[in-house]
């Protein structure tokens, strides 16, 4: 794998282009969490008892934070990368410079993770404004680190999909059949305890489940041994997804 510091150049290119969309994406990133937190958190939460001694909103926030990271980084590396690759032919001019195909793809993965961090970070601000706060300052920082970690994972997974996608339509399979179900089966909106055993084991195969578990532990400061397992699963998956995603994209870019 021919990776170098030039990943950073590609990231900066994306930052330049982002200047034009920053207001609209910030608005979207702020409105989306409000929608989740108000409808589910306050609206639905009003009909629910306490979750482990706290309101439903407190239960909801840590999961929603990582799932918004998932959504942003996934979409960035599906649609964003596809446009750059097929419509704008940006990769073609990139790989004719000392920037390698691996640098270019990794730069886009880093960018996808950054977009995830922005979405998650804004959502955390909204949650904090609504009085749902992580337990301590270090836990705020840890949550931000977790967001980047989760962002790289889902950006890499999306790259794999993008590398084999003939058109935009193909992305629907991934988002509708994998990403959306993941949102509902990963314990973001309700605990998984009451699920039948097979559903629980299914959830164990979903990366988001592990991310939500970690997020909840970091948010509340109540760590338990299981999150080591959660972290290991994500870590291994992330390494695998990154190297497969970069390699498959390279195969598509270089003919």
């Amino acid at each position: 794998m021919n990776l170098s510091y030039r990943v950073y150049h590609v990231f900066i290119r994306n930052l330049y282009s982002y200047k034009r969309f920053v207001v609209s994406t910030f608005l979207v990133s702020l409105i989306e969490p409000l929608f989740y937190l108000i409808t589910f958190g306050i609206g639905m939460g009003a009909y629910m008892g306490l979750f482990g001694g706290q309101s439903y909103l407190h239960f909801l926030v840590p999961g929603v934070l990582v799932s918004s990271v998932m959504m942003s980084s996934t979409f960035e590396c599906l649609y964003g990368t596809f446009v750059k690759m097929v419509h704008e032919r940006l990769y073609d001019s990139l790989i004719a410079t000392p920037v390698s195909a691996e640098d270019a793809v990794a730069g886009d993965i880093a960018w996808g993770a950054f977009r995830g961090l922005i979405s998650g970070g804004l959502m955390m601000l909204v949650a904090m404004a609504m009085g749902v706060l992580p337990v301590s300052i270090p836990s705020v920082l840890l949550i931000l680190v977790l967001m980047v970690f989760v962002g790289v994972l889902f950006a890499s997974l999306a790259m794999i999909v993008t590398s084999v996608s003939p058109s935009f339509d193909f992305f629907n399979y991934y988002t509708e059949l994998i990403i959306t179900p993941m949102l509902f089966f990963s314990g973001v909106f309700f605990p998984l305890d009451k699920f039948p055993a097979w559903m629980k084991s299914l959830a164990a195969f979903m990366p988001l489940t592990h991310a939500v578990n970690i997020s909840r532990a970091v948010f509340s400061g109540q760590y338990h041994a299981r999150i080591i397992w959660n972290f290991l699963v994500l870590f291994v998956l992330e390494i695998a997804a990154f190297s497969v995603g970069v390699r498959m994209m390279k195969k598509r870019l270089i003919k």
Partner: protein
Amino acid sequence: MSAFIAARGLTKKYGDLVAVDGISFDIPEGECFGFLGPNGAGKTTTVRMMHCVSPVTSGTLTVDGMPAHIDNRAIKMMTGVIPQEITLDPDLTVQENMVIFARFFDIPKREARPRIDELLKFVELEAKRTSKIDQLSTGMKRRLLVARALLNRPRLIVADEPTTGLDPQARHLIWQRLRQLKAQGATLILTTQYMEEAQQLCDRIVIMHQGRILREGLPQTLIEDEIGREVVEIRIAKEEDERLVRELGPFARGHERVGDPLFFYCRDGHDIMRKLVELDLPNTWTRPATLEDVFLKLTGRGLIE
């Protein structure tokens, strides 16, 4: 001195399709070398292997002594590419396109700024600095591609059909700029379908067809060897061919019937013209032989899809 670029048995396959079929050539530094050929002849594939964006299937290809390879950053570092397609960054302005590209080549900001100014001036785009790419005309976009390709002060410039789709003014401006670069010592690799472009710019050319090199040489020598100096064109019914060839053949080096006209290729058109006057044929004219005649003779006149 060994060649700046050397290819031996260079081959490129895409699955079963052989795009470049075992070609060999040497290009000394400072030369303008042209690849001519119809669509699908393998010109673009060949130059893409040279500037290291497409892997070599077999054979060898070296640039400045280094093997051309997809991960050879050293070759990419000294190469400027003017691509066939407009691959400017549409999300950025003219200036930003240059700034970002300079970054890709690790050019420090302090050096990049004056160089960008100078290059935008060179292609007459200073006034468009803050324009977005979609506000530019095709000619301006092509000029910006030229400026962008020069950011790293390349020793090797690869121009893949650099004037496709341009009006004559813009085309001449690009030609002038390319000639200037060559005068400054850069090696220039050009692919083109425009014979005039090749004649204007190239020291040496190869004519490619179906992945192979058919001829190599100086444009003028190729014309004289293959065609002669002049071409006599006669619009006449096919039935007359036999008689005309009998009458005019001795004065020509060769003849060819292509649909409507009958061509005679000759070293000197005078004798044939005198004969034509005798025969009193309408619809005849004589013109200098061009590279286009060579090209069509060698690559055939059928449409190549």
